[in-house]
Every structure is written in C-alpha cells, then in structure tokens.
C-alpha cells in the first residue's frame, strides 16, 4: 500500500467533455482512479473534476493513468502567480 503522503496532486487532462447529457464527469473520473489506485479509495484521491480531474497520485499510479487511451496528459499541479 502506498502511504497517502507519497501521493502528489496531479492533473489528469481528458480533452473535450462529451456532449452526452447522461455523462457524469465525477463517475468517469472515479472509474479511472479505481483502475489504478492501490490501498486507498478513489474517493479520497479525487480532488476536483473539470474536463479532466485533479487527484493525489503516486508516481506508479500516474504512469498507469498516462497510458490509458482516454487520457491526453498527466502532469503535476503547479502554482501560478499573479503578475
């Protein structure tokens, strides 16, 4: 099991949101997470949903998600500054 502290916040970018009215981003995102998350519930890792999602991921989990067909990119959350 991976300790929660070993996970860092990553962005999983999925591209355009489907037009399907039935589509639930959160369900889709939890489904992706459940396929890779070890020793921790997907609910605990998911931080926020948009046209992608932010989740706490280990390096190994990040690699697994990056290889999924429905994923455009996975990258660490960064801090942006006012300019």
């Amino acid at each position, binding site marked *: 099991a991976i300790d929660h502290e070993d996970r860092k916040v990553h962005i999983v970018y999925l*591209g355009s949101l489907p037009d399907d009215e039935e589509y639930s981003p959160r369900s889709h995102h939890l489904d992706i997470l459940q396929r890779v998350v070890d020793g921790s519930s997907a609910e605990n890792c998911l931080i926020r949903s948009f046209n992608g999602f932010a989740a706490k991921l280990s390096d190994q989990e990040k690699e697994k998600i990056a290889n999924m067909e429905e994923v455009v990119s996975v990258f660490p*959350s960064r801090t942006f500054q006012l300019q």
Partner: protein
Amino acid sequence: TTRSWDFMGLKLSSPRKATAESNVIVAVIDSGIDPDSESFRDEGFGAAPMKWKGVCEGGENFSCNNKIIGARFYEPAESARDEDGHGTHTASTAAGNEVRDVSFYGLEPGTARGGVPSARIAAYKVSGATGCSSEAILATFDDAIADGVDIVSVSLGSASPLPFDNDPIAIGSYHAMKRGILTSNSAGNSGPGAGTVTSVAPWMLAVAASSRDRRIIDKAVLGSRTLIGASVNSFILKGSFPLIYGKDASSNCPEYYARTCADGCLDSNSVRNKIVLCDRPAGFYEADRAGARGVIFYNPIPDDASLVPMPAVGLRSEDYNVAISYMNSTKDPQASISKSENIKDPAAPEVVSFSSRGPNQILPEIIKPDVTGPGVTIIAAYPSDVPVTSGSRDTRRVKYNILSGTSMSCPHATGVAAYVKEFHPDWSPSAIKSALMTTAWPMNHTTNSSCPGEFAYGSGHINPLKAIDPGLVYDASAEDYIKLLCLDMDEARVRLISGDNSTCPTASEQGSAKDLNYPSISAIVTPMTRFTVTIRRRVTNVGLANSTYKAEIMPNSQVEIKVEPQVLSFKSVNEEKTFDLTIVGRGLPDGSHMSSSLVWSDGTHKVKSPVLVQSLS
C-alpha cells in the same frame, strides 16, 4: 487608467455601441474582486444579458449587482472578495466604471475607467496566499465557458513556459476558444532575458507591458546633488536626515545581507531617525520594520517605480553608486527624499525591462508576446480594506492604487478585445486577436534588453480605435489549431482534445507551425545556409465590400521578400483570399534574427504583420 486609455486614443467620447457594450461579459480570473468599489457600482445598468448562465456564489458578505453579475471562488479561498487587491485592479482596468477625481495621494490624477465601462464583469477567484493551483485554473475555465462569458482575462502565469498539454491556462483557453471566447493573458514579468515569455499558445493573446507618456519619479537630495529616482512615494519627509549604509547598521548579519537590508539585519538603534542605503528594493521593508526615517535603494528596474511603505527612492545603478560615494566621502552625510511626482515621458511607449521576451520556447515559429499594452504605474481600483503595501507599519488604505506588471497590461488588451467584440459580436476569437495585432502601433526597438524588437513587443502597441476597423483579418478555426496540435501529438490524443473525429494530415502534408494562419509571420532557418521559405496566409475581408489591397514590404538588406499576388481584390465582405510570402536569403549566423514587415493597404486600412526570420541550429 486615468491616463492609459486616453494615451491609446480611447477617450470618454470615442464611438460606443451602448447596448452592445452592456451585453459584453468579461471574465476576470484573478484574486477576486471588491464588490463595494465605486468602479463596480451598477447605477444605470439593466439586468444581466440573456446569454448569462452563471451564478453569484461569492460566499459570505458578497453580493453581486448588475455590474458584477457573477462571482465564484475556488479552494483555498473562502469568498470571492479580493484580499490582495490585484483582481480588483485588473477587473476595473478591463471593464470598470468611469470614476472621476481619482488619484493616489495626488499621483496619477484623473478619471479612472475600464476599456469597456458599460460591460459586465464575472469574477473568478483562484488566488490564495501562495498562488493559484492548476486545478483551480482549469475548474475556473470550465465554469467561465459554461457561464457564457465573452472574453477571459488572466493576469497569471507560471515561472517558465510549459508544453500546451501541461499548461492549465493553455488548456482552458483552448476550450474557451472552441466556444468563441478569446483569452487575454499576461506575457510574464521575467524580462528582459530571451525566451522568458510564458504565455505561448497561439489561441491566446499574450500581452507585454510598456510605459505611457506619464511617468512617476522622485528625488533624493544628497548635499548639493539631486538624484532622480523611481518609486511611488506618497510620503512627505520634511528636512534632511543622517545617512547610513545598511552594512554599517547591522550587528548580527554578514556584510552581504546587511548591505541589502535583508530581513532582521538592521539594528533599530542604528537606523532610527536616519535614511538608510540598501542594495536591493525590498530592503525598504526591513528599514520600515527597524524604524528608519527613509530609504535610498538600488532599483535594478529603473523603468518601473515600486510602491514603497515609507519615504523611499529607488536609484539606477550609476546614481546609487553616486549616493554610496557621497556617503563614504562626506564627514556628516545628510539626505532628503521628496514625494513622488508625475512627469511627461516623450519616449513612451517603450517595453518595460521586466516584461518577458520571446522567442517562444515551445513553438518558436509563433511570435510571442503578441501585443503590448500599458503596464507601468497604472492606477486602478483597490479594496479599501487591503494595505497599500505589505510593510508592517503601512496603515494607508486607498480606493485606487498604483501597480505595475504584465498583469496590468493584460486587462488593457482584454478591454480592447471587448471593445472589438462590442462592434463585432460575431467575430471569432482569432479574428478579434488579429484585429488587435494588425492594427497595433509600430514600436521602437528598446535598448534595455538583449532581445529587442518583436521579441519584446510582438506586433506592437494596442490601438483600440483602429482595432474596431482592421480591414482584413487573419482568421483561424479550431480545425487550424488541430493541424497545429498534430505536429506534436498522435491523432488519438488530438481527437480527445477536439472531441470529434478530426484527422491529422499525413506526414508529407503536415507542414509546420509557420503555416498556421497567424497574424504575425515567422520562419526558422538553418544557420549559414542559403534558404527559401514560402509561407501561405489567408485573409478575410471585414472592411468595405469592394476593396483592393496592395502589399508593401519593409525592405531588409539581409533577405529578399516577395508577396504573390501583390494585389488582393475583394468583391464582398467575409470573402477570403490567400497569398504566398517568400523569403530568400543566406548566411544568417546561428541565433541571429532579422525582421521586416508586410502591410496590406487599401489606402484607408493598413493591415500590418511583422515578418521575422530566426536562425536556429
């Protein structure tokens, strides 16, 4: 803004379409907004436009009105209220009301206003104490797009340029562009070094910062010598005071830290009732804490003026050295510091040294920044409960404050984009962007950077009145951008982004980034070789139905540039024509570049594109 809009020619009396302007919704992704500011009162405003689908969820103690029609905040913020001042400043610069008799302790007096004072504002607070997270920015774009905004203003940036699929502002603005929304983004404050621009995606408008014709200066008097400096100093310091160098006023810090007046280094007993010399700007915070009467500091960015929490003046290197020499060579050195004043600056507009420069590190064939706008000592709305500076003893509270940065130039470009949207509500984001770029004022090469010219100012300085009537536009569709994405991604990933069955060109037809129908033109060539580069562009007639444009090329001794055809005749509005621009040359040294320009002119309109050839191995 009491001078910046007039400086650009957008006056209170300039043409407006009142109803159309009040239908424009400007999204400001920033540190929140002060709903109590006069700049956002809603007298004379009707209900929100019908297209508005957003909400007012600003949190406790936050009410929207018919000017601020929407508000949201994202963790870790607890309300959309602006606790920093930045978001209030940028929102009022883009779309704030006209407010008369504004000044900052007498500096920058006049009427404060946004570019589109009758437009509506939707505020999205993403900034916490430590900055803004990628996930908050992405969530914000999702919400702003769904809320039905017209233009997005983002005065935020990363420390370095990021690949598009790793950059939340590039991702969010791409999806905004697909829904017809242009995003204006600050170019960054990491200049004047080359390749420092962080807003690099071609579907965004990247905005550099320049000076206006009104500057702020202040003075230090040392003995019989008066030195002119730059800082926003509202304090009146009567009389002269003993001068002491930071390094001579510290008992607990190594000399390097003491001379910069680093935090905790100055002894209160040594600096009390004295003016301290500090080798860095932020030294005034330590001098303030230690109870000094004033500060003379070295200002490495002399073309900008810092807000100071106490009587202080920033001197350029040569003048600071004069001050040090005076102190070292005088038995009883004394100095006085004057309150800042406004002077006329005939050299304006010049790109300020802190403004980030190209070339574009992610896509070198796309010139970034795109345009330049006023970004030095801009006065605009500020929350009256937020301190003017973070100085520990700064008790000043103001309704209008002076800030500098590409954060300040960005909302000027946002305001102009919204002004164009007011006249042309059906124009695409790229058409609006093209209008701003091809009508920009030419700017002079600056001397404060190793990479001047187009890498500093892009196409030039935004010119609002010309931007609403550009004559021709270089339009680019979502499909054009898809072709660009295909250069770096496989088709499957591109389809995820497009959300449809887009196809990528075959390898032989793939082309390069220079083929994007962009309003500026750039090509990369191999050093010290003979080259011929042909670039195709497509222009759309948005001027008179029957019009004929002739091509003019600014001569350059290093290359030969030809346009084919040299004349474009249009018979209807929205008619498209293509042309080829061929650049022939040889022997450009590695890392060098040469610039020229193409102007399409019908006698009334001048549609100008910079042409830049970069030699890269």
